[in-house]
């Protein structure tokens, strides 16, 4: 019997140890319970600042902010009796109301979720004073963009909610945050967004706010985003978009002295206000689905074309720099270039010796094939020759990324020796094997912005500044050490440029663009017809004006436009006139460009392509049957 008390002592000690052990486990060992406690109790409220505004180069407001309100709900707190009244106020059906509420409930009964997205300013103003009557509903202010002009959609871009995947890798963003998705909104996202403020509130188990957490000591104030001054001239942009209506292609206009992009037109485009607010997703899907027109695709930055004849100017400059030719080097065109079994056609219509200036202004293929061959063959091997050529071509900003402040771009392609070594085998090729490069065809592809940039380099007589889209942040110009401010020298000495520029002047005076010339404004340019294996050739034109002290350099591409002087040259000319004088006094030309409609052409091309595809499939079927 006397050992019975021992049982009790053991029992007490054992239980005591078990408890202390468990307490140790819960309180000292485990960390997650402390975190759970924190989550229970502190609610983070984000305060969104105003997003930075965007102006054009003359201070016109392009993008402003407008408020919209999301209606949030905490299902646990609502009074069921209110639903009919509130549905009426929100202008939705009772069934819709129920559906939304169900969705919120499924997410969480105690946590707030979005009941109705982006109620417009006006609508909200009407219902705001009644909202407080409805337990469990509260508004959350949102900042949306307001685009002042229905232009420059591709330049400015748009904003949308950050995706889950993005949020996971970027601690700065939280679900529901808006982020730039394209254009300046995207490439300057960090500058425009400012800093979100945070308010920490204590909440009880029913999610009711009980006060500020630790007296607000962890709260932070929001910082508004910085305003941007873009390099775009909105008047010129508007004009360019008008000239390009009902056509496909692009216009890229640059101020040569600074590299500032005056205008970046892609056609077809869209009204940027379509991608704002509640309808944004729907409109985006529609625009995205238009795979023929591709309005969301910025052709000026992304479309790659073989440049065609405009590239001849570059070849001329490289040939001069290499000493392979002088301005007086002449060749006679016999309806093209012929070498052995190789024939390159030419439609310059001349049969007398052409010097450099005439060769450019008449755009003679034979001339350029010959000088290209001379350029390459001035080196002991084709490899060395082509590499030297490639290097100088690339120094005009071609065949590589421009590394500017635009969110997207393509590299283009300027081949060098290694490319052809792989294709033909080492020492398996010569200058004539790659002769299409002479006339801007073959493997060579450029983007329109690259073409505009090289034009600017020519206008500057041998250097350029990286084309960029923003010139000031919060009124302050770009810093001196900003890489966009770096002067980039081409590998062609400035002494070689005047003769080429004179030739480009002649293009307007007597050459292929003479129908686009202006009687008092001197202009320089070069027409081009880029071969298009899938349909009609593209109409290309590069130009700058005035020849002395150039203010604007541009490239125009009109897809399937037959030949350069038909569409691209007149458009380029009108753009330059508009920019230099502020108005246009060639109403008939202007009218013809504005009214120019290539849609039937595009439709015909499409049908032809479908027809070809159908024939191919039939042939395949026949061959397998047989």
């Amino acid at each position, binding site marked *: 019997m006397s050992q019975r008390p021992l049982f009790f*002592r053991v029992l007490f000690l054992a239980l005591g140890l078990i408890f202390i052990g468990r307490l140790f486990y819960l309180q000292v060992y485990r960390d997650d319970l402390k975190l759970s406690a924190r989550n229970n109790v502190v609610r983070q409220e984000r305060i969104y600042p105003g997003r930075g505004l965007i102006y054009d180069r003359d201070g016109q407001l392009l993008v402003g902010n407008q408020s919209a309100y999301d209606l949030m709900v905490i299902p646990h707190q609502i009074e069921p009796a209110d639903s009919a009244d509130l549905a009426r106020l929100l202008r939705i059906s009772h069934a819709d109301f129920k559906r939304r509420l169900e969705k919120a409930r499924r997410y969480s009964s105690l946590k707030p979720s979005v009941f109705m997205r982006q109620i417009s300013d006006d609508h909200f103003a009407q219902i705001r004073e009644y909202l407080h009557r409805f337990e469990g509903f509260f508004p959350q202010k949102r900042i949306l963009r307001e685009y002042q002009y229905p232009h420059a959609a591709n330049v400015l871009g748009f904003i949308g909610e950050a995706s889950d995947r993005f949020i996971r890798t970027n601690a700065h963003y939280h679900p529901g945050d808006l982020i730039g998705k394209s254009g300046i909104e995207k490439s300057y996202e960090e500058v425009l967004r400012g800093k979100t403020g945070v308010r920490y509130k204590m909440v009880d188990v029913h999610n009711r706010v009980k006060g500020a957490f630790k007296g607000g000591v962890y709260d932070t104030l929001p910082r508004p985003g910085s305003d941007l001054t873009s390099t775009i001239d909105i008047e010129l942009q508007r004009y360019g978009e008008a000239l390009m209506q009902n056509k496909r292609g692009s216009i890229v206009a640059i101020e040569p002295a600074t590299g500032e992009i005056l205008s970046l037109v892609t056609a077809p485009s869209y009204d940027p206000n379509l991608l704002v607010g509640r309808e944004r997703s729907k409109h985006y899907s529609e625009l995205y689905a238009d795979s023929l027109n591709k309005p969301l695709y910025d052709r000026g930055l992304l479309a790659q074309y073989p440049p065609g004849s405009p590239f001849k100017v570059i070849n001329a400059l490289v040939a001069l720099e290499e000493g392979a030719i002088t301005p007086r080097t002449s060749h006679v065109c016999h309806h093209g270039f012929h070498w052995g079994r190789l024939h390159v056609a030419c439609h310059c219509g001349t049969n007398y010796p052409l010097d450099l200036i005439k060769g450019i202004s008449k755009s003679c293929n034979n001339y350029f094939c010959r000088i290209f061959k001379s350029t390459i063959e001035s080196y002991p091997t084709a490899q060395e020759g082509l590499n030297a050529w490639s290097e100088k071509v690339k120094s005009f900003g071609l065949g590589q990324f421009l590394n500017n402040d635009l969110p997207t771009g393509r590299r283009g392609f300027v081949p060098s020796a290694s490319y052809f070594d792989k294709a033909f085998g080492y020492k398996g090729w010569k200058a004539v094997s790659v002769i299409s490069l002479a006339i801007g065809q073959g493997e060579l592809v450029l983007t329109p912005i690259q073409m505009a940039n090289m034009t600017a380099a020519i206008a500057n007589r041998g250097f350029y500044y990286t084309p960029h889209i923003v010139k000031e942040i919060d009124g302050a110009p770009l810093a001196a050490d900003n890489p966009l401010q770096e002067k980039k020298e081409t590998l062609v000495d400035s002494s070689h440029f005047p003769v080429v520029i004179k030739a480009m002047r002649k293009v307007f005076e007597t050459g292929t663009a003479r129908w686009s010339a202006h009687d008092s404004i001197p202009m320089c340019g070069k027409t081009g017809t880029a071969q298009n294996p899938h349909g009609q050739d593209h109409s290309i034109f590069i130009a700058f004006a005035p020849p002395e002290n150039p203010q604007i350099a541009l490239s125009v591409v009109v897809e399937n436009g037959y030949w350069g002087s038909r569409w691209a040259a007149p458009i380029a000319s009108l753009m330059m006139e508009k920019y230099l004088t502020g108005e246009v006094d060639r109403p008939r030309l202007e009218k013809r460009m504005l009214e120019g409609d290539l849609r039937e052409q595009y439709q015909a091309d499409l049908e032809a392509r479908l027809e070809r595809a159908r024939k191919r499939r039939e042939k395949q079927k026949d061959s397998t049957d047989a």
Partner: protein
Amino acid sequence: MRNYGNVFRELDYTTLLLWVLIMFLGWLNIYSAVFDPEYASILDMNQRYGKQLLWILTALGIMFLILLIDSSVFYTLAYPIYGLSLLSLVLVLFLGAEISGARSWFVIGGFSLQPSEFAKAATALALARFLSGYQRDLRRFSHQLMALGLAFLPALLIVPQPDLGSVLVYTAFILVLYREGLPSLYLVIGFALILVFVLSLLVPLPYLYGGLGFLTILLLVLGRRQRGNGWKVLGVMVLCGLTVQSVDFTFNNLLEDRHRNRINILLGKAEDPQGIGYNTHQSMIAIGSGGLKGKGYMEGTQTKYDFVPEQSTDFIFCTVGEEWGFLGTSALVLLYLVLFFRLMIVAERQRSSFARAYGYGVLCILFLHFGINIAMTIGLAPVIGIPLPFFSYGGSSLWGFTLLLAIFLRLDAGRTLSL
């Protein structure tokens, strides 16, 4: 009237001190748990801390009064008091107010009285008297039956309220009986049945029967030397088998949904931190978030913002955990252990078996409350609503425990005199 000087000289002040200390600490924590800045006055009778202060003061009064009563009174009145408590338990089923789905309280004026709290003390007295009877021998089956009947009759009356927590506390008396001579076999059976009970909820039945069968064979082989062992083993195993079956039946058919759910959640078979397992989950969060040193007095966020339900009563331990951390909780656990060891010493030094049996009654009741309450808050037991003695808010429970303890202290103070 005896010499009161004697009483106060022989009184066990250690226990008294521990009692006051625990009450005071309990009050501090209640203050923090229920604190409302608008009603900061400690004397505000509308707030629980104000009321608890009143209960504590009155409890001191009760203690004093009981100490004045002659100790033989308790012996004499043991059975009548017991009878009265049985009556009150029956009456409350008809006259009691329905609170939280149970009829456990009499409501008189602004105050409520819970008869099951006082019935514990009455049962301890009656049982002690029974056990101290001449020629009482718990090795005799008839006496075993009577003792168990005496101990569990009140429990039976509490079942219909329903208040399963209080019912559970009556198992404490088995421990008392064990101290007073109940054969250990009962304890072994008791533990075995509990084990089997829990296992039958966790382990699929076929495995369980297989295990029992194997164990039976093993024990028969081991115990074949001693005659009669075989029957004992078979008897126990049959009992286990029956238990397994009845558990299954009870669990699915007799227990209510909420009990099932609570048990399932405890066993890890179900998960719902926002549902019925919510209490335990929140409680563990509150306690766990205290860390080593706690967040400081009055600084518990889980407490302040009502994340733990029944904070001032059943889950008062959470406040300790959150605000005083591991140091605080283990200190409190140790404090109770000191109380229990002290009570054991006092009980063992009694010359009369009545006083000793009663003492163990007090000890075991307090111990069981302590064990279940704390285990529940730290997730080792399902949520069973019983208070932490002297610590939780509640007039009836505080008076009930105080009464329980006071009688024992009085009996102890008179131990040097013959009864």
